């Protein structure tokens, strides 16, 4: 296998991702780490934004503290994963930062890079949250051309769904 795209949104699940490479899937020649900045923060409105509105949003927050903070967070997350993965023996790692709708951006990068597999985390959202704001992993799974691996993080199973994952990710900010 040549390339695996790994989409990361927080630092919480690097051990889980590493375990996947060591035990379950063949180590690829190259790993593409993607982080998508959510410009709209924690709001649920991203699904309702069209291309034009999203572009306006991008323009208007350029150079603001909010954007700087997002960039810094993205760098932190990506370098964390990069370090973890290279400690685990994967040397060829490319990092990509995008902004906008996570599932769209992940799919775009996957197509550009011609990834053979996409790995996404499980968001741990509740049913209602999913209904309202959608779920990146589900959207990716639905529209991807290549196989998608849904990694399971802490408490992402059926039993501990409600307050795990997402909340923790927000706490890091």
């Amino acid at each position, binding site marked *: *296998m040549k390339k695996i795209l790994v989409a990361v949104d927080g630092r919480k699940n690097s051990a889980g991702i590493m375990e996947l490479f060591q035990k*379950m899937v*063949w180590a690829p020649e190259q790993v593409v780490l993607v982080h998508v900045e959510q410009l709209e923060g924690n709001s649920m409105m991203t699904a309702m934004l069209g291309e034009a509105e999203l572009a306006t949003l991008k323009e208007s927050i350029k150079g603001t503290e909010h954007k700087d903070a997002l960039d810094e967070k993205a760098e932190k997350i990506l370098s964390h994963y990069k370090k973890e993965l290279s400690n685990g023996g994967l040397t060829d790692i490319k990092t990509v930062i995008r902004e906008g709708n996570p599932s769209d951006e992940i799919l775009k990068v996957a197509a550009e890079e011609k990834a053979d597999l996409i790995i996404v985390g499980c968001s741990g959202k509740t049913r209602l949250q999913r209904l309202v704001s959608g779920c990146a992993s589900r959207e990716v799974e639905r529209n991807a*051309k*290549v*196989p998608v*691996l849904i990694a*399971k993080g802490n408490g992402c*199973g*059926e039993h501990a769904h409600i307050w795990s994952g997402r909340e923790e990710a927000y706490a890091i900010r």
Partner: protein
Amino acid sequence: MKKVLIAVDDTSGSKAVLSVFSNLVRPPEEVVLLHVERLEGKSLMIDMLGDAELSTLKESLEGTEYKEALDKRAERILNHYKKALEDGGLIRIKTVIRAGIPSDEICKVAEAENVDLIVVGSNEKRGLDRLVAGCVSKDVERKAPVPVIIGKCDTSEKTLEVKEAAVTA
């Protein structure tokens, strides 16, 4: 890795599990090959059935020709995939037939067998169908205690191209 659960049915979406298995996944010690019989046929009512109703349905179908046909089909599907996997060089394969709601049964078997990974095909249901009847891989992804790989076959490619074209236009 010790055990992988591979869930298959007779839709073309299931074919993708073979390429996923041979190209992406490290060989496990054992494969559990699962097919879930859909007692309710193609109807969309399965989500509305409770456990009690489902077990009544199971009982009333016991011994009927319909159930026999389902069993025969399940055997055929499992044999087909078993042979394909064996051709790939794998020896230890356990086949399991269950009846009921596919995503639930897949997760139950995954737990009972203590598997490390689940491989499912992607379902070609789109739009409304998917909204009404749900989608096995989606439900599995949400409920499963272990990582899930959703295979992709060529049929899904066309749909995406159409969508991309619509966006650029």
